[in-house]
């Protein structure tokens, strides 16, 4: 029983990080209708900047630099590329971001090369004990930060001018721009925000107990895709729930691998995708996505 709780807590903490990454996807989708396949490389960019700078300027300034770098890069993608073909269809825009992802990832993995770059987090390998369960401090902090960011984002979207602008742009772009909302500004802001979220997720993904920033980190965003899909692409609540579900599923599947061995081995990697497919069968727009109801 204790083991199950440990697994659950571990899964939830990992899921919180996935939720951060998924939230980045959803933010961009809601504001501009684009599936941003470049989230993975932005994540890696943020983590890489922190990894390279923390020794010379300290961890926290490096984190700020990493967030700034990822946010700027993300915004540039929107301003320089997406903006030019905003009217194109979903698939085209998604593939464009795929191209950007390939470019960024190739350059970053070339820079990282053979290194394993430590992220230099001050909480190092500390462990926290909660009700008899030991969890790495970095994971607890990740969970807390993720919760805070999700709440802050939800509040901002509901209460601030910017949030209102974003929601109306998402619902009806033409009407919104007629009302004086600068669509381009809203879009750029959303992209920058997604980049920042990716960077934060990247820092936590490369903290203890991970080794650090390696070339393979960029592919982790791929693991967040089941989270976004099953949660519903345009729902922040869906992103969070989806992220948590995926985190828990992968950890439980790994933890109970012996019991599940009749299905073959190594099920931890593929379980999230299976869960995603099953959810889609029952709810084709994800758990919280807006359902298009059409009857002819």
């Amino acid at each position, binding site marked *: 029983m204790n083991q199950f709780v440990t697994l659950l807590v571990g899964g939830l903490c990992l899921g919180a990080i996935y939720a951060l990454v998924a939230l980045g996807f959803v933010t961009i989708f809601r504001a501009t209708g684009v599936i941003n396949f470049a989230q993975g490389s932005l994540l890696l960019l943020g983590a890489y900047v922190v990894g390279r700078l923390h020794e010379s300027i300290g961890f926290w300034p490096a984190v700020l630099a990493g967030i700034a770098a990822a946010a700027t890069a993300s915004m540039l993608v929107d301003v320089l590329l997406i903006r030019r073909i905003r009217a194109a269809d979903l698939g085209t825009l998604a593939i464009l971001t795929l191209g950007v992802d390939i470019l960024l990832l190739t350059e970053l993995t070339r820079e990282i090369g053979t290194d*394993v770059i430590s992220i230099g987090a001050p909480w190092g390998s500390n462990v926290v004990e909660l009700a008899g369960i030991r969890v790495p401090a970095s994971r607890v902090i990740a969970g807390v930060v993720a919760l805070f960011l999700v709440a802050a984002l939800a509040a901002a979207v509901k209460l601030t001018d910017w949030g209102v602008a974003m929601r109306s742009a998402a619902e009806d772009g033409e009407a919104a721009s007629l009302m004086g909302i600068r669509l381009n500004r809203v879009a750029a802001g959303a992209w920058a925000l997604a980049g920042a979220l990716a960077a934060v997720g990247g820092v936590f993904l490369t903290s*203890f*107990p991970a080794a650090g920033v390696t070339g393979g980190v960029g592919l982790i965003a791929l693991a967040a895709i089941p989270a976004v899909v099953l949660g519903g692409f345009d729902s922040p609540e869906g992103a969070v729930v989806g992220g948590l579900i995926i985190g828990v599923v992968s950890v439980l*599947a790994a933890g109970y691998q012996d019991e599940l061995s009749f299905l073959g081995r*190594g099920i931890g990697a593929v379980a999230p995708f299976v869960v995603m497919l099953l959810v889609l069968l029952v709810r084709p727009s994800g758990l919280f996505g807006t359902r298009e109801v059409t009857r002819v």
Partner: protein
Amino acid sequence: MSRRLVGTLAVVLALTVAACGKGGDDDSDTAAGGVKTGPGATADTLTLGYLPDLSGVFAPNGKSMMEGAKLYWDAKNEGGGICGRKVELEVQDTGYDPQKAVAAYQQISGDVIGLGLVLGSSITAALLPSVEQDGMFLNFAGWTSDILPNENVAIAGTTYDIEAINAVDFLMREHGIKEGDTIGHLYFEGDYGENALKGSKYAADKHGLKIVEQKITPADTDMTGQVAAFRRAKVKAILFSAAPPQAASLAGIAASQKFDVPIVANGPGWTPQLLDTPAADALAANYYVVSSMAPLGLDADGVKKFLDAYQQTYPKGTPSSNGSLYAYAGAQIADAALTKACEAKNLTRQGVLDALHSLDALDTGGTVAGKLDFSDPSQPPSRLVYIAKVSKDAPGGLEPLGDAQTAADAEDYSF
């Protein structure tokens, strides 16, 4: 309409002209200076093909390997080469993509006397049919016994299953594991991990131990679930056949759970850079490496020579047992085979293969454990390993525990 026709014909003509000049394979067995030569050997050069991964999943290893290879061959060429011939390398990046590898092989196969390095089992598997047909030797940058028996393949050292058997033996000798205990095995899907698992299962059967398996892929970087599963099964030790990122995660999480058990890894499970990560303390406390590639701190002539040369040539680089040192050792083996072939006045591909199989006590100065015996294509050239413990002060982060050794189980094991 006629414009299109002219345009098409022009393109066709250009293609034909560009691609002209093909005959059969240039299989000239001409004699040069009394020595029979074949493809890849002329009067003043010997050409070796190198097919590492320089841009894909194993790019770090591949690049490190090329450092070691260049180190060896540059020095050899300065000393006059092999029987008066300079050794040239034809390097092609496979990107760990079987398609690229096959195309790259087709490109270089006519010019080389053998393959000095092929990185990756799936790459080697894709190439073997052609390599066997072309009759050349292949230095396999991997240590799986699944590839045996094979006339054309040379492994530098022993195989993962034998390493695992030795690991179990070490745990029983030095860490109090006894009959009836349970040990865990965390392994990669694929030839590496599953081959090691074969060995651990064999040893476990023999000694009445139970193995708890956890299969993972290189994309799995969080070992929370796996550690929990091991704890639930109450394992007393963990065998590790995966890569450094997983090692850090495993050791770190185990330490955070106060799960204090020894972890014994195969060679590819270590890189000195792990000592710069937050998991360094956990690794220094409990991590051991069993491998036929020498730990860099080993007091042996060959290893010292390699380290000196490396530090001179690449002052900013990081030498690695599975990377640069491996390729260096591979070059030693190729050197021995080529030299012997030349002495036998037969520098054809078959001649080199015969020379390779005639080596039965090759001493690499300690870079590879034991004296290498290539006479039986169904056996790896050695069954000896080095056992090392992680240590923050030792070069390469590994402190050797004794000399090259092997367990009785490992000697009896048949593939």
